[in-house]
């Protein structure tokens, strides 16, 4: 645990020492605000709800989170610091979890920075704060799952750009595949499978204010599985 925090702190410092964390936070605020106010028809809706705001998150985070995670391993490998890091007395799990916590903390900071949005909406009309809390919880969990998948893809390459593109593609697919079910009018059994797999679909139920333990478990499982694969990847690269 202590070792994990050593990694997390170093990684976090490196996020905030570079423009990356700030660019990430600013981009998330800007993109979601633009879509929410101008394109999403917030004022036309004439109702105090954050639902259309949070509905943007599966897509927006799918593009932004890989920008955050692409460097986690690709950069270490490219500049060679990977070798020094691996020969320090950390277990593979400590490395993967430490880096995950750092990326997740940046995402959480960015989410915290969006708080003025619901506060403003709340000032304009009656907002159900319980639902808002559930939506934030959902966004945090979605962020964790995305970050873990992004980190795994970063561990597969020494090229940040390919880590980013693979990450964005994978997360857009994972996040938005449930919309395919609606568009293509898939048979119910297939739609069920697709929805079950889609992180975005799970996220929707949070924005209804429903916290389902199965959804919690699913996000936790995806995060854990991706981190496990990352740790395995680190382990096996010693044997290659």
């Amino acid at each position, binding site marked *: 645990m*202590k*070792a994990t925090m*050593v*990694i997390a*702190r*170093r990684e976090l*410092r*490196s996020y905030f*020492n*570079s423009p990356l964390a700030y660019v990430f936070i600013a981009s998330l605020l800007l993109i979601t605000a633009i879509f929410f106010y101008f394109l999403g028809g917030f004022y036309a809706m004439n109702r105090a709800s954050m639902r259309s705001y949070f509905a943007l998150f599966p897509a927006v985070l799918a593009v932004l989170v890989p920008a955050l995670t692409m460097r986690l391993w690709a950069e270490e490998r490219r*500049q*060679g*610091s*990977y*070798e*020094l890091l*691996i*020969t*320090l*007395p*950390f*277990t593979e799990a400590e490395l993967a979890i430490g880096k995950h916590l750092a990326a997740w903390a940046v995402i959480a900071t960015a989410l915290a920075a969006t708080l003025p949005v619901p506060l403003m909406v709340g000032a304009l009309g009656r907002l159900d704060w319980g639902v808002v809390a559930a939506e934030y919880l959902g966004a945090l969990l979605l962020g964790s799952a995305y970050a873990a998948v992004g980190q795994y893809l970063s561990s597969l390459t020494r090229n940040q750009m390919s880590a980013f593109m693979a990450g964005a593609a994978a997360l857009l697919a994972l996040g938005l595949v449930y919309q395919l079910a609606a568009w293509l009018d898939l048979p119910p059994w297939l739609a069920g499978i697709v929805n079950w797999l889609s992180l975005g679909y799970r996220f929707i139920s949070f924005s209804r204010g429903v916290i389902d333990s199965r959804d919690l478990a699913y996000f936790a499982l995806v995060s854990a599985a991706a981190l496990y694969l990352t740790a395995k990847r680190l382990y096996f690269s*010693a*044997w*290659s």
Partner: protein
Amino acid sequence: MIEVSGLSKSYGGFEAVKEVSFTVGDGRVIGLLGPNGAGKTTIMKVLTGYHRPSAGRAVVGGVDVAKDPLAVKRLVGYLPEGVPLYGDMTVTEYLSFIAEARGLTPGARAPAAAKAMEACGLGGMGPVLIEHLSKGYRQRVGLAQAILHDPPVLILDEPTTGLDPNQILEIRSLIRSLGGDKTVILSTHIMQEVEALCSEVLILNEGRIAAQGSARELSEAMQGGELIKAVILARGGGAAGGEPGAGAAATALGWADAEARPLGDGRSELSYRATAGRGDEEAERLFDWAAGSGAKLLELRRERISLEEIFVRLTSEEHTK
């Protein structure tokens, strides 16, 4: 401290190290010498727990690298080739990260970092970003992080590459001061470095050990032992059959394969390869001959075969086979 037996390591289909065995005693400084691609770095990567062996065993401080890499990583301080550090940290930040990573207690971190910085001549560089450091200073930071937790084993991959002559001397004297207390393995392709630092040399070629021993043992083992060179002055006055120069000396002493070369003005040069262990005796005979024949020795010197020569011979012979 370090035992390697039958170690092989292949990447994909390429066998970088083939059945290498050697041991390094406590407090010894051993040099890995070899052309690029000979397997030096691979051996080091196995000993640091970065790579697992494909076959054979590597044991560091009684711990099998393949079985408990984490324990080995604790015992070893490692300076990888090229010194890959985090450029976005200052020297102090970086070393305190290393101190934390090495599990030093909060109270011990700052003193350990300060001590390592002092030993590596990094005074005053604490607040500087690593990416702004010159190559020499980066190398020192790399060394400082390797010795920070006072490890019993130091593994240094080309510790002086890219440094200027003054820096090289400083780093060498630092490494020398660490030996005795620590077991050090260093790789290099600079011969003087090995002669200056290492109690033992391992010459590698194409993944195998081509020779091992102390620099002296190697040169004695490599046939020829010593080269005796003399410049002889014999002006004018020889008895019948010419001057008592180099040629006459060779004949008189029975040095059949000696080379004699006139240098003009009555001087001539003689060079003779004495068999190992007979250098003293042959040189004495030459002196006595000169005294007896009235020739004058302007110069008499003896050369051990340099490590460089051994290296070239070992590593190029293999290629032509």
